[in-house]
Every structure is written in C-alpha cells, then in structure tokens.
C-alpha cells in the first residue's frame, strides 16, 4: 500500500497516460464519425421514393447542407432554397446527422423516421399556411416614393439565402414602398434583414422597417447587423388593401431586404 501523498504525486502521470490513450482513440473516432456518401445515397433514395412535388427538404446541422444538396439538390428549387420561412410547406423532409435538428421542424412530430448508417430521415406533415398574397410576386406593381425602386433579389441575409425585396434608402431619408390592393388574409407575416456581409461590416447601425395598413402602423422591426432575418407579424382584415413598407436607415449603403406574405 502506497502512502497517500506518494499515490497522489503519481496521479498526473496516470492522468496524462489515460488522456493520451483517450485522445489517440477519440481523434480517429471523430475523424470517421460523419456518414459518407453511401449513407446519404441510401437516405436520399428513401426520400425520393416518397417525395411529392412541393415537399420541403432540409438538412441539419447547417454545415452538412452542401452534402445534402449534393444528394437531393435537384429536388430543391431556388425559390424553396430562398424561402421566407417554412410555413407554406405542409410536408417537410429532414435529413440530419449527429442528432441535430433543423429549426423548421422544431415542435413537430415525425410521421416516419429511419436511420441510414447515421443519416436520419424524418418526414413531418402539418397543415400548411395558405398564402393569399406574397409581396415578392408583386414587386413590379409596387410604388416607391422618390427615385428609388425596390428590386427582387436572391441574396445573403444573416448568412442564409433569401429571396427578398431589396431597397437601399438614402441615409436619414425614409422610403415608402406601397403594394397596392394586396389580397390580405387574417395575418401578415414578414421578415426583414440586412443583406451583404461586407456592408454589414462597414456600416454598423441598424435599420428600421415599418408596415402600415390603411394609414395605421401595424408592425415594425429594427434589424441590426448581427440579427439576421427578423420576423414581424400583424393581424389583418381579409380583403384587398394597400400595404406600405417604410424603410429607414440612418446611414447610406444599407441593403434592406424584406419579404412578407398575407396568410388566410
């Protein structure tokens, strides 16, 4: 039996030895822990067998998205990839690894689930939101005060792809963009953010977007450079109505991007 102090003094060497053995094994295990293409092929075949047009396909974690698109990207149209949110999709396929979850399916219960050598495939079904009007489809009808014109772009907002209406207001001068006679439902849901990582770096102040319906302010959002794609919503009265989006920026060269849907 060793004296306590002697045994304690021996502990660092034992700990280092055990740590070394663990690290040797753990390093190799980590390097081979991510499922490869055969697993993705199998998972993709499962999705293709039951895929219906309009199904949303998402991947988790975010960083595996390129691999997911390699195997199923042909089923993801550009409009779906740059979606405002997932509410209009009634069926969502989630392909995930390492126990990750896509934000689009949080709170939903899968109707089917399977594991293909580490790639988990889950199908979710839920009632899809009914969209009565989408501002992205009415950009050409939109009127802006002054010389500025909003454009429909596909760009990076918060490091994610989004189709959105882009306006670049002059610093300190609000821009009003009117979508005439938009077919409203019971709710207007939208998102706004600042596009382009480099202008976000160089100009750090937030921007503001107000929404007016019938001359009344119904929603407002103030996304900053690190806020990404910020949601806003307002209850609405069904029927065709002018909807006005007012973008404000204290400084110039802010790429304000927004999207909005009127939902039944």
């Amino acid at each position, binding site marked *: 039996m060793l004296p306590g102090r002697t045994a304690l003094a021996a502990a660092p060497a034992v700990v280092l030895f055990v740590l070394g*053995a663990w690290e040797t094994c753990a390093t190799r295990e980590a390097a081979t822990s991510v499922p490869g293409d055969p697993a993705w092929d199998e998972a993709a075949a499962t999705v293709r067998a039951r895929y219906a047009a309009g199904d949303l396909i998402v991947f988790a974690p975010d960083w595996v998205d390129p691999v997911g698109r390699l195997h199923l990207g042909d089923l993801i149209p550009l409009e779906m990839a740059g979606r405002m949110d997932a509410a209009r999709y009634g069926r969502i396929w989630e392909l995930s690894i390492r126990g990750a979850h896509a934000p689009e399916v949080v709170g939903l219960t899968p109707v089917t689930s399977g594991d293909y050598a580490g790639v988990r495939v889950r199908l979710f079904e839920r009632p899809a939101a009914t969209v009565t009007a989408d501002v992205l489809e009415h950009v050409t009808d939109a009127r802006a005060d002054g010389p500025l014109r909003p454009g429909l772009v596909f760009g990076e907002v918060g*490091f994610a792809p989004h189709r959105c209406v882009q306006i670049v207001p002059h610093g300190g001068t609000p821009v009003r963009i009117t979508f005439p006679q938009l077919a409203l439902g019971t709710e207007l849901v939208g998102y706004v953010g600042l596009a382009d990582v480099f202008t976000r770096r160089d100009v750090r102040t937030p921007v503001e977007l107000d929404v007016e319906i019938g001359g009344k302010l119904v929603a407002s959002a103030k996304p900053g450079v690190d806020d990404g794609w910020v949601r806003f919503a307002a209850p609405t009265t069904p029927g065709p109505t002018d909807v006005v989006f007012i973008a404000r920026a204290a400084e110039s060269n802010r790429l304000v991007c927004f999207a909005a849907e009127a939902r039944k």
Partner: protein
Amino acid sequence: MTRARRLHVLTGVALAVLTTIAVLVNQRDVGIARDEVVYMEYSAHYAAWWRGLVTFDHGISAKTITATWGGPAATDNNREHPPLMKEMFGMSQWLLHDVLHVCSELTAARAPAAATHGLAVGLVFAFALELFGFGEAILAGLLLLLLPRALFHAGLACFDAPIMTWWFATVLAYYRALDGRRWPWLVGVMFGCALATKHTAVLLPFALGVHYLWLGWRARAEDPARRWTLLVTHRWRVIVSLAVLGPLVLFVLWPWLWIAPITHVAQWMSFHLTHVHYNYEYLGHNWNAPRFPWHVALVTTLLTVPVVTLAAALVGLGRWLGLRGTLPRAPLLLLVLSFGASIGPFLLGTTPIFGAEKHWMPALPTLCLAGACGIGWATRALAAAVVAWRPAWSEAVTRQTLLLALGGMVTLAAATETITAQPYALTSYNALAGGAPGGADLGMNRQFWGVAVRGVLPLLAAEPPPVGPQPRFIYTHDASPAWGLYQKLGLAPRWLADAGHEDAGVAHSDVALVVHELHFNRHDYMIWQGYRSVKPTYVLRSDGVPIVSVYERPASPLP
C-alpha cells in the same frame, strides 16, 4: 566536445532536420494560400534586386529601391510586410528551382519557412536541455513538431511560423546573454530578424522588458549603493544590443528603410494598427468588427493544440510555480512572459482575430516547454511511487522506462492529432472539440485563405478538355489569385481559365467553386442564381466536414 554533448547536439540537429522534412513532405498536399501568391511574387523581385546589387547590375538609389521595395500606396510592392522571409523565399526559389531544379517553385518558396520551423524545434530542444534535461528536451521538440496547425503554417511561404522561430530565438539569446557575457550581439541580431519577419515582433520587448526589470529588481539587493541604477543597468549590454543591433539588422535587411526610414517604419506600423477586420467564425458567430470576445485566443488554443500537450503544459506550469525563484535568470518567468506578450493582445477585444492561432504562434514554444517539463516531473513522481511500492526496483531504470512509456503515449496522441489534421489543418480541431466535425458543430472557423481548393484540382484535371480552341471558365472567388500559379505548376488544367469576380465571374463561368466559410455562403447563393440550381456536383470534405463545393453549369437548369 564530450560524448554527452555530441549526443545532445546530434539529437537537436536530428529533430530539426526531421521537422524540416516533415513540413516539406506535408506541404505537398497543402493548397496555395491567397497571401502566398503575393509573397512569392514580391519575394522573387526582392531576391533579384539583391542579386542585381551584388553583381553590379544596378546601384542603390531611391528610384531602384522604390521600384522594388515600395511605392506611394500602402501595399505597393508588399511594403506593408518586412522583407526577411520574402528575401529567403526568393533566394530559395532562385537557387532550388531556377538554378538547381530540385523542386517546384512553390516548394522552393516554402522551404525557408520549413527550415526555420526545424530551427524552432532545435532551439526548443536546446532550451529544454538547458533547463530540464535530455528526456524533456526531446519531448519538448516533439511536442512542438506535433502541433497540427503549426505544422501546417510552417509549410506555407508566409511569416507566421517563422516569426515564432525568430521570436523564440530572441528569447533564448536574451536568456543566454544575461549570463554577463561581454558581447551579447546575438540577441540583437535575433531581434532584428524577428522585426524583419513580422510586425508582431514589436510585442517582444514587453516580455523582455518586464523580465529584465524583474531581474534588476532582484539585483538591487546585491548592491545597495546602486539600488535604482541597477534596475536598468544590471545587464546594460543586452539592452544596447536589443536597442541598437535589432533596428540596425532590420534596417540593413530592408532597403525600403534606406530612404526615409522613420516615415516608412511609421507607415508599416500604421498599416497594421488600422488593419481591416476580415471575417472570422467563432462559436457560431461571424466576427468582423470589434469588440471581439476576450476568450477567442484562449478557446482557439484550447481546441487546436493536442489535448495531451495542453494537459502536460498545465502539469508543467504547476511544476514551474514550485520552481519559481530557484533558477538563475528566471527562465520560467521569461517563458511565461513570452507567452503572455504573444497572446495577450488578443484578449483586448480590439486586436484583429481573423488569422486565429497563426497570430499568436510565438506562444507555442512556452506551451511545449511546459508540457515537456510536466511530463518529466510527472514521470519522476510516478517513478518514486513505484519504487516506494517495489523498493527492489532501480529508480533510474524505472524513471527512464516510465518516461519512455508516458512520453511515447503523449507523442502518439499528438502525432495522431497532427496526422489526422493534414492537409486541411485549418478545418481540424482537437479531440476535446470532437475533431473537425466537432469544430463545425461548435461553429468554429472552417478555414481561410482558400487553400482547400487544392483538393478538388485532381477532379477538375480529370475532366475531358473542351473540343475546339475555346477554354472553359471557372469561378473560384478567393482561390482566384492562386489559379494562375496552380496552372503554372500543372495542378490545374490550362483549358480551365479563371472566370473573374463576383456576379460577372459566375455569369461567365462553366464551373464554379465555393470554399466553405460562413461569410462565403454568399458565393453559393450567387452560383445558385447564376446556374439556376442548388446542386453541387462534388463536395470535398475533411473528416466529413464540407470544405469545397464544385458546381457545373447544368445543361438544362431546374425550372
């Protein structure tokens, strides 16, 4: 020279040579970093200028100096970086590639960085030998060799690994100069080399200065009559060497300083003090403007240095605390101060963080020396425990056996991390993070400089060339500066021409690459729009983590 001394010298040299070879072998699969292209271009000019000077092809005038070394704009002729390593890259290219034809111009340019890394390992071995013993010295050298990211950076024609060498050479030369030698010239020369390598060398006097004052404070007691003057003058020749020879070496090596030296030094420093902040992903957030989290340098080190090296360093630090005040000239304090001066600025929240571990590489020798000391001390303690349990066993043999076993295990773990990390070490994280996939889960930076493109070149080269004289075009965003060099080296097909930049480049391209970094997602989205498809045709992965996507313009895009 005694037999023991000969063994020590041979072992140190062997470790240095082994390291140089390991770096040179490893860099063959490492792509061209964006900055390397710039450094290689100007290094060739610098070397040609020196050769022209000694062969009397040209003289020394403001005109010839400005044409090669400077210019009115902040980055003209790469004047924002001091010249030593570029001069070495250029001379090496000329000698190894142009004259001797023993390797490619890329390997030739990278060879000096590899050699200086070997020198760093040799110097760490030498310092550990002086402080702790032969076994610890070997371990210290191996721990430095087996750092995944350091090995990677040492294989690039850049300044980050070399500054670690010159920084540590200055620390070692300074420590030795404190023995009272009459002509401590080496410390000044080493400091000059450090200054001529990278601007971060200006942090070194903070470590040396505090250490020097500490020794002066202790020296006061020995001569009460000169209490306060001793604080500064106790080894005044060292100060003179650093203050005179250091800048002098910088001046001699950098012709740009031969005209308007004060103005040009001020411009050099000003460039780095007002440097733009590049994008850097850290813990799931893209950082490109201060304030940065104070813990970036600590967490990044924690997740990129082998765990066992860190743990051993922790044990060693404990041992150093026990040894404080017992070693002449306070070498352990010096090493801790060297670590602090290198990594400390990154705790401020305003220092650019985009280069991550490469910016505080001079901190690494301290970690490795502490690690080796920790392993040696832990082994001795274990050997004492074993002999207490089995008194018949020889303590010396037991200790050597255990040092071999524990040192072997630590080396194995560090080697496993290092080998697994290559050639995409910037994507790699240690076992504590969960490797490259764990690093991706944590939202740690994926990579930078576009080096991973090297991995998809064989795929592109295997494509059949186009029929007819028209080339095909490729969009490569941040690998674009290296594309011409890849073609020159025969790694990228000649018929695949660079398409240009941003949306126009995508529109002009037949093939497109995306180097995966969070802020490069925008290139994916440009390509999706341009090709009307989100489907890549190939995704290069490092341990399962995507690092480069390849897209080919579809014949019939999705509706």
